């Protein structure tokens, strides 16, 4: 009685085995292999191998809560409750959740503005502080691991570039402006044949921007405008230079009543500043012209606001379309290009004063500049393809760069080697490719200073 079922099992096993072997051969012959998500570098099957390494250090990582929502991670640096995290992610009232799920009100001891690092303190004892590594300059290619946004999960990657300072990025106001004709030189006017030339030279005006946002009709109308220099309708000339996908646009208007009065932003820098907001005027050019009659006045000096970017420094300071910006701090503004130059002297977070004319009245507004990248998010295609990134992602004394795909909400967590020693504190999700961490030696010095 006993032997039979065993034999039967064996038989079934044999069939299963043969079938498996056959399908394997079949697959090998016909199908190119494909790596499932789970088996990729940050797939769960690969991460499983790192789980045990990470396990012992989980207790040193905390969640930073702002209004009960996780905004960042924090790293415990002493057993009596000192915690470091990324400063710019939270407001005034904050709580800490430890790995045992207990919540504690945190007091902000100090903030190092230069590196966006905050030192917090909770009332607790017997906590599990991290082990700092002595190696201050990790080598490229070295394995690293960090907790992800959900801190029970680990992510892995390698040190991916030279350890270096990252200077602070210039600030952004968030306005689209127009100039009068005085500031435009002949060299700013592009002849249509330049575009044709560029296309012939292999520069292709094919881009997401065109594909997504200009209909075929609009595109062919545009092309005929471009190819017909004698056409006297309000026409656009623009140069699309596909510098490895980076688009520079130049947009000019001409019509009898606006002859020589371009609604233009004549330089590449200016276009970067106005960002994608210029697209709307491109698409609705008649609308634009009609809705701002008499926008440009002869002899006027300054930069006229055409549009205010949503959620920008300009909007927070209640700047309005139609305002004429005449000065930044004490320097007078001579056109859009000049405005860009003056604004870029300042970094994000700096306060500037803007002199402007609204309905014939002179006003002075104080504005705290925003971050360029987040003010004009779709200007830089690299950011559009990066998912969520940190707001404050530049301006650090020294950073270690690695390639772990971490969420901005995982900043403040530790960057560890495979022994679990901390070589840095994650401080900014920079883009699709890079996450920055403040090196351990710098963090330890900053903690001493802040205590």
């Amino acid at each position: 009685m006993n032997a039979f079922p065993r034999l039967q099992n064996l038989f079934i096993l044999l069939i299963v085995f043969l079938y498996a072997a056959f399908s394997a051969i079949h697959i090998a012959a016909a199908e190119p292999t494909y790596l499932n998500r789970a088996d990729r570098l940050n797939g769960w099957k690969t991460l499983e191998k790192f789980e045990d390494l990470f396990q012992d250090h989980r207790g040193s990582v905390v969640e930073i809560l702002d209004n009960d929502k996780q905004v960042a991670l924090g790293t415990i640096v002493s057993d009596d409750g000192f915690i470091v995290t990324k400063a710019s992610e939270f407001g005034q009232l904050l709580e800490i959740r430890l790995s045992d799920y207990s919540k504690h009100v945190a007091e902000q001891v100090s903030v190092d503005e230069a590196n966006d690092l905050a030192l917090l303190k909770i009332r607790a004892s017997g906590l599990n502080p991290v082990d700092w590594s002595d190696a201050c300059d990790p080598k490229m290619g070295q394995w690293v691991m960090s907790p992800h946004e959900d801190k029970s999960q680990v992510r892995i990657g390698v040190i991916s570039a030279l350890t270096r300072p990252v200077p602070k990025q210039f600030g952004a106001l968030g306005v689209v402006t127009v100039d009068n004709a005085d500031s435009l030189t002949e060299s700013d006017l592009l002849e249509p044949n330049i575009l044709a030339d560029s296309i012939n030279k292999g520069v292709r005006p094919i881009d997401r921007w065109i594909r997504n946002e200009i209909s075929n009709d609009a595109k062919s109308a545009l092309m005929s405008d471009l190819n017909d220099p004698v056409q006297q309708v309000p026409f656009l000339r623009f140069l699309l230079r596909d510098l490895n996908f980076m688009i520079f646009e130049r947009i000019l208007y001409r019509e009898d009543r606006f002859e020589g009065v371009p609604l233009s932003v004549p330089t590449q820098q200016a276009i970067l500043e106005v960002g994608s907001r210029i697209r709307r005027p491109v698409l609705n050019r008649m609308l634009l012209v009609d809705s701002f009659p008499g926008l440009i006045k002869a002899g006027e000096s300054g930069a006229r606001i055409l549009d205010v970017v949503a959620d920008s420094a300009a909007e927070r300071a209640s700047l309005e379309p139609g305002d004429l910006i005449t000065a930044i701090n004490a320097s007078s503004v001579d056109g859009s290009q000049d405005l860009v130059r003056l604004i870029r002297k300042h970094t994000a977070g700096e306060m500037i004063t803007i002199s402007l004319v609204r309905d014939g009245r002179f006003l002075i507004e104080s504005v705290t500049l925003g971050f360029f990248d987040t003010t004009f998010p779709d200007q830089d295609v690299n950011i559009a393809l990066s998912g969520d990134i940190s707001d404050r992602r530049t301006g650090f004394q020294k950073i270690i760069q690695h390639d772990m795909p971490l969420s901005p909400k995982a900043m403040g967590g530790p960057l560890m080697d495979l022994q679990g020693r901390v070589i840095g504190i994650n401080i900014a999700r920079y883009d699709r490719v890079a996450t920055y961490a403040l090196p351990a030696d710098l963090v330890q010095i900053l903690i001493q200073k802040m205590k």
Partner: protein
Amino acid sequence: MLQLGAEQSFHKNIASFQKTQSQVQASLKTAMASTVGVGDSGSGVIVSPDGLVLTAAHVSGAPNRNITCRLPDGKRVRARTLGNFDYMDAGMVQLEGEGPWPCSPIGNRRLNDAGDWCFALGHPGGFDLDRGSVLRLGVVIHARDGFIRTDCKLLRGDSGGPLFNLSGEVIGIHSRIGEPLDDNYHAPISAFGKMWDELLAGDTIPGPLIRRNRGVLGVSVETHSKGILLKEIRRGSAAEKAGLKRNDVIQSIDGFPIDDTFYLRWAISKNSPGVHINIQYLRGDKLSEITVELGQPTGRSERGGF
């Protein structure tokens, strides 16, 4: 016992990861020295001591133009663009001036397998001297349709940069990405190998014609270990007239080796109807060659067919 076993396999795992790390680090010096900035904001890799650079077709652009490359130390070097194979995003650039240049070896020309380790270098966001070229470590997700897909995350500016195997051999050139982080595509080195002489000679290699202008063979196919398997021959098609049969395996067209439907599409669809092509194919074990006059497009969708 079980516990011990688990621990052993765990240490074995980590040891294998550490081995990967030392292989990458051993290859990194040469790989970094040969990775250059190309043009205004692309990347490339030097593959010969006399300064031949592989890059993406959309970075090098039209042949015979003067451009500037940036060496890892920031030095600017004048260069001339060579051939351009847009369909596979394969381009070449020749550095001008005295060699020998630091260079990386080219990997073997077969497609890489899913799960193979690889690493990417390049200049995402443009050349940055303080940062240097940026390393990304990952694995091959799959290699088909003329492209290698990996989880080495790329960004604009990386275009044209090299993908290496752990021995530091160039196995691909960064081409394009999708929004998901694992959508990173590289032109395989085989795309260059197939067109090496033409690219070196500065040719612009044409891509497939648009649908209503292209010649049609009249078959549906699937990938096979020895080439491209004919799954179906359409009645009255050019393939049927020439005598091709179901289960024949196409190996090359006009001397161009076909190991991927991506290349088959190109080898057929770059021709107009009426053009004669030579097809080398296997029937059973027998290798034969025939000439086919390509037919007219039928008008209905030729999805999955050629």
